[in-house]
């Protein structure tokens, strides 16, 4: 569902001309709503809907119900990127927060417990569905902030990892 490995360089040359990956294109466009874009590129029609994922900093660009995850970068971004040292894995999250309001229907972990990637930390019941919150990598539980049957709000801290 997600495409990989494609990097494009685009430059808008004029109001109706763009240079993308070395090819010149004519284009017309109109935003039908804030997140809805009708684009005509060399007379081919594309009808996009776009969601911004602020947390992870990418755009989800949906074309014909197929989702492309895109990180747009300006020239300045690229220069800054080259200057900065390799920052390593910054997405290593230590806090597990509730993705939605609900009730903790099952708690599988306790403080100090080692957890393997893919194990279920806890089950969150919301919208009549049970949702498993799983470990994205091997980790150790530092603190458990919730208990079974407790209701939680969106973004409430559930667990702290070491």
């Amino acid at each position: 569902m997600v495409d990989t490995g494609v990097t494009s360089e685009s430059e808008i040359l004029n109001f109706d001309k763009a240079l993308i990956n070395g090819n010149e294109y004519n284009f017309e466009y109109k935003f039908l709503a804030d997140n809805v874009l009708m684009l005509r590129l060399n007379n081919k029609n594309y009808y996009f809907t776009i969601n911004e994922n602020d947390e992870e900093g990418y755009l989800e660009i949906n074309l014909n119900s197929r989702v492309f995850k895109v990180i747009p970068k300006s020239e300045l971004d690229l220069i800054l990127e080259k200057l900065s040292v390799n920052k390593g894995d910054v997405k290593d999250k230590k806090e597990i927060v509730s993705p939605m309001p609900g009730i903790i229907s099952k708690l599988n972990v306790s403080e100090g417990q080692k957890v393997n990637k893919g194990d279920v930390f806890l089950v969150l019941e919301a919208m009549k569905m049970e949702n498993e919150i799983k470990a994205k990598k091997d980790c150790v539980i530092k603190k458990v902030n919730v208990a079974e049957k407790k209701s939680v709000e969106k973004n409430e801290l559930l667990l702290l990892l070491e």
Partner: protein
Amino acid sequence: MFKKILIANRGEIAVRIISTAKEMGVKTVAVYSDFDKYSLFTQIADEAYHIGESPSAKSYLKAETIIEVAKKSGATGIHPGYGFLSERGFFAKMCEENGIKFIGAGYKAIDLLGSKTEAKTLALKNNVPVVPGTEKPLTDVSEIKKISKIIGYPVLIKASAGGGGKGMRIVRKEEDIESSLRMAQSEAKSSFGDDSVFIEKYIESPRHIEFQILADEFGNVIHLGERECSMQRRHQKIIEETPSVIMSPELRTEMGECAKRIVKAAGYSNAGTVEFIVDKNNKYYFLEVNTRLQVEHPITELRTGLDLVREQLKIASGEKLSFRQEDIEFKGHSIECRICAEDSEANFMPSTGKITYMKNVLSNGMREDTGIVQGNEISVYYDPMISKLLSHGADRKTAIEKMKRALRDYKLVGIKTNISFLLSLLECKEFINGNYHTQFIENEFLKRESELTKPDEDTAAAVSLAGMLFKEKANGRKISTNHSNNTLKNNWIKKRVENYR
């Protein structure tokens, strides 16, 4: 016919029922929770009454309040839809005691068929096959071995107090009985404090096939063919179709007659669904009866040309069925896809929020049943189904292609949906060949590495430019006023758009 009915439900099914009632000249009364104050179904009904807070226990499940509203408004019938109070015998009984017609089965039939053991006994009595197994709890190893041999392997050992997969073991050969039994028993003992077990034949990779039934109050019963509902995840149906690819006219008649025998024996009236599981050799076993209108009923409507809600209202108002079994004609092929507010890529986590843009292209005979319009919120209070998209074509391939076209054209902004997941299911070879079963999604499909198809050059260029134009617009908004169109030219002269992962 009723002059006025109350719809004890919400969302798409309330919209569905209200539509038919209005077409028949029947006035409609909606009831709503805090959350649904301005929902579509409350707008299109003739009257609407507030019945409580958003959680369903404080509104849509308040039987007494709903009956009071019916009386106050002068509604003489209550349609329960599906879910909520639809399969609660006590509610049907309360309606009757208050002189209100429950538009569904009688409470005795609801209670009888609602009990799994009683329904199974009824099926056996009426020569309808059920999954072979023991009726009494067992603990003795030699007895369990003896019975397993008669049933035939593989068998399923099930804790009698069990649930949620605990205390369950599949046993494929006799040597494994003792160790599996010990494990199942210790799990059952620690979880439920009871170590007795049932033995049942284990049906591998079964299909879920159900028959739509209509029964009037004079003992006339007909079936409207089957629905194949094997595309499920965690027992939630996702895609349904009719006919089933495995169905022959002979098997349809045979299973349809079984379904009719059960509901007849239960003294059932109104619309209902008899569910079966079917094994690899097309052997079928009765599962249960759903004593209500099903979510997926529209695929049967598309294939038979009947309006099931209309038939329900006619039956409940004491009319005889106006057709016989041989009058039912099945035409073409029909598919339903359930569009849900969930993130297919994050373990199907429900997605909540406001739908800021919603547009679908229902041309060329597509049907959509929904209670949602642009601007609505998806809340945590109710189930995450946004819409049922329905296609009908001369044959299966046409119906699939129509559905794919409509899913691709469907635009929804503000929440995550399973639309791309539905598309990938429709495109997988197992679905195309009709070679799938109830465990297919969980045990096979979701375990596959997703295929990484690169977009062609023009598409990649369009996506790249779209990202840029979007950023540009966002940027423009922030800087606002003193920037004209030059923003486009000056601020983001050279940008890089990168797909990652």
